[in-house]
């Protein structure tokens, strides 16, 4: 079962998230000539020296490891852009939507395999770490607002890694809150002798945490 996450703890392991992120498309500048690749996951190439081409990240990393290309860092990984994002993140309690869904994984992979292709790599790295911290702190603050009456959790623009970290917690916390907050679910001797039919709450409880348009998260809970 190598590489497979324990379904009980967290749905996706960090490796599985990285695996998903490796399908994101990046631009590379190859330095070799190679005919197009007709892969199961799509057709890429042809590769001609000095001609920019788009490939999935895993392919880019594989070529880079063999010294066959340089990876063009995505636009959002520039000092200027990241400084801007960090400021935006600090200024507001809202999560900014300027970073891609897999920004944590993509930047990690690029730092590991393509450091020499990223201008100002140390600054970029520390900026991304700062952004991560600020964002995660916001998520944590948002979570403080939970109560037994919480039916909707709405956190905009969460990234894949952030969602994955809070998912088990949110799920279980809501579950626990819900359980302790609904007297119908807890057998109560007085209530039973009362023998009045309990009003069954059968409306679906939906809680939403929202990523940017096009990528939204929501959690649903059905009460029968």
């Amino acid at each position, binding site marked *: 079962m190598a590489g497979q996450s324990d379904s009980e703890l967290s749905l996706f392991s960090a490796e599985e998230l990285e695996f998903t992120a490796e399908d994101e498309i990046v631009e590379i500048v190859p330095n070799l000539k190679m005919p197009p690749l007709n892969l199961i996951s799509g057709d890429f190439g042809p590769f001609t020296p000095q001609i920019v081409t788009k490939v999935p990240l895993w392919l880019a990393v594989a070529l880079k490891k063999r010294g066959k290309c340089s990876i063009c860092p995505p636009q959002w990984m520039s000092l200027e852009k990241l400084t801007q994002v960090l400021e935006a993140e600090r200024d507001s309690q809202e999560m900014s939507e300027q970073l891609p869904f897999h920004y944590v994984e993509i930047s990690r992979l690029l730092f590991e395999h393509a450091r020499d292709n990223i201008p100002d790599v140390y600054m970029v790295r520390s900026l991304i770490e700062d952004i991560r911290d600020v964002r995660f702190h916001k998520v944590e603050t948002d979570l403080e607002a939970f109560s037994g009456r919480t039916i909707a959790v709405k956190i905009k623009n969460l990234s894949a890694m952030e969602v994955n970290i809070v998912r088990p917690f949110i799920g279980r916390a809501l579950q626990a809150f819900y359980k302790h907050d609904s007297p119908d679910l807890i057998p109560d001797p007085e209530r039973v002798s009362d023998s009045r039919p309990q009003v069954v709450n059968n409306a679906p409880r*939906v809680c939403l945490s929202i990523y940017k348009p096009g990528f939204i998260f929501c959690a649903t809970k059905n009460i029968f």
Partner: protein
Amino acid sequence: MASKSNAVEEEELTLPTDEYEALISTTDVELLKRAWRNEKSAPEILRFESDLINRVTEQIQLMEETVEENSTDDADPLSLSLYQMDLDRTLFLLRSYLRVRIQKIEKYMFHIRKTEELWSRLSKEEKKFTRGKGYLLQCTDDLKKHVEENVLSRLPENYQSVLKQSVISEEDDMVPEPQLDTFVLCRSKEYLTGIQLEDGPVDDRQFPYSCINLFLSSQK
């Protein structure tokens, strides 16, 4: 219980038509990834994506043959290794998808077997796995026999059923069932309006239409 919840889901979340068109332009690997994500996230077993799995398996076989053929010639070792990587990635997805299903099947074996709806979601091979005469001989029957021989037969007469706590139980209360009454995190692809919250439809705020794909595709 399950059917009730599903009905609610379906009413609210009908699949928009452009969703269908988007599906056509996506590669099978992308679809497999989606199926894998859904299967991992859903508490219960979803419908087996037989067409998709057949297509992917075919592509994998084809690719394996191509790689095999080329490895004997003096083909470019670099592109060969890239093909191999692509193949490995697809294989990982496929295996993980099948394993997640097997895990669920093993966990809820009795429940799935007695629920027509769930039973129909399994693939032919999975049905064999739980009840077949195939390689894993009659999984449920064996488990039942094993539990009966080793434990239940030594218990007082009233407590000997695999499915029930005791003879006074009206329902099969010893059968593990997936917890449907739970929170699931979903990812939406388009704007979605009017998700039903507890107190009625959400006002005119636009909620992107969500993933709930898994409810849609599996529970028709």
